[in-house]
């Protein structure tokens, strides 16, 4: 027998990556009346893929601003403070130093995603995604260089694995920072709704 509740993971993805007010409720309503879990999954995947990209295309200049903001934060925190100040100070001699360095570095990426999401409401998810896409494109040359070096033997294969893993973790931290920020906003909105605040158009709220 089919559960009355839609697939949990699909709902989670929808809530976190597709900030379209009303859409999640519409999908639940349809699912309970006449649809299958496979239909719900398909709709969730389409919504998560289409909606944020549609918002990036609709708000190109906001996306450019999000990328510029992320770049400035990266330059100040990661490139200047972390590599220029903290790394020489830590010395990177022991395992503890290296672990501490990477933990601080990834926390700064988390902060980066959080700040981008905070500054680009109500399009937080889409704008964090814009920066993530830019970060993926920016990662191609260094990863390619390490891959070539690994192929000609001047670097070990583990160096390539490390490079790729480090960049994937970086992207995950960026997304997590964005998700944390939007989740906090959603909680705040739920509290306001519970207090009976007037609910207007999301666009009007954004303005």
């Amino acid at each position, binding site marked *: 027998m089919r559960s009355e509740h*839609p697939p949990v993971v699909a709902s989670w993805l929808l809530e976190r990556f*597709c900030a*379209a*007010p*009303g*859409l*999640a*409720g*519409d*999908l*639940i*309503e*349809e699912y*309970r009346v006449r649809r299958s879990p496979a239909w719900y999954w*398909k*709709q969730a995947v*389409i*919504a*998560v*893929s*289409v*909606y944020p990209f*549609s*918002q990036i295309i*609709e708000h190109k200049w906001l996306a450019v601003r999000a990328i510029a903001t992320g770049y400035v934060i990266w330059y100040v925190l990661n490139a200047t403070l972390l590599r220029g100040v903290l790394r020489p100070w830590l010395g990177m001699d022991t395992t503890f130093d290296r672990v501490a360095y990477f933990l601080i570095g990834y926390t700064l990426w988390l902060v980066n995603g959080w700040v981008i999401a905070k500054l680009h409401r109500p399009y937080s998810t889409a704008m964090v995604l814009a920066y993530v896409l830019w970060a993926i494109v920016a990662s191609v040359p260094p990863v390619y260089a390490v891959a070539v070096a690994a192929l000609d033997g001047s670097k070990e294969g583990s160096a390539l694995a490390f490079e790729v893993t480090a960049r994937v973790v970086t992207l995950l931290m960026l997304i997590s920072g964005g998700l944390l920020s939007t989740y906090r906003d959603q909680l705040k909105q739920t509290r306001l*709704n519970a207090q009976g605040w007037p*609910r*207007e*158009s*999301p*666009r009007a709220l954004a303005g």
Partner: protein
Amino acid sequence: MAKEYLGNLELMVLLSLIRVGDNAYGVPISHEIEQRTGRDVALGSVYAALDRLERKGYVTSNLGDPTPERGGRAKRYFQISAKGVKEVRDAQRMLTNMWRNLSVLQGEIA
């Protein structure tokens, strides 16, 4: 500012919105498109189109009250604006002009 023309899906969504009338939200709008055109359009795509239309000023929206059958989520109601109605009329006029006197299509019908 350059005039923004309606896309195919946007026009279908606007026409469905007019047909559904009051209390139009995502589910009846997508049902209307499915019944009239035979196309199963994803709700996410309908919402993306509605967001574009709202940005262009062709529709307005407001959130209703959360209901238990929707897992405690509110409905988002959409209304077509006067600018939206004018845009649909313009699109109809433009498409009718394009269709007029097309011998190839007339031959197919005959």
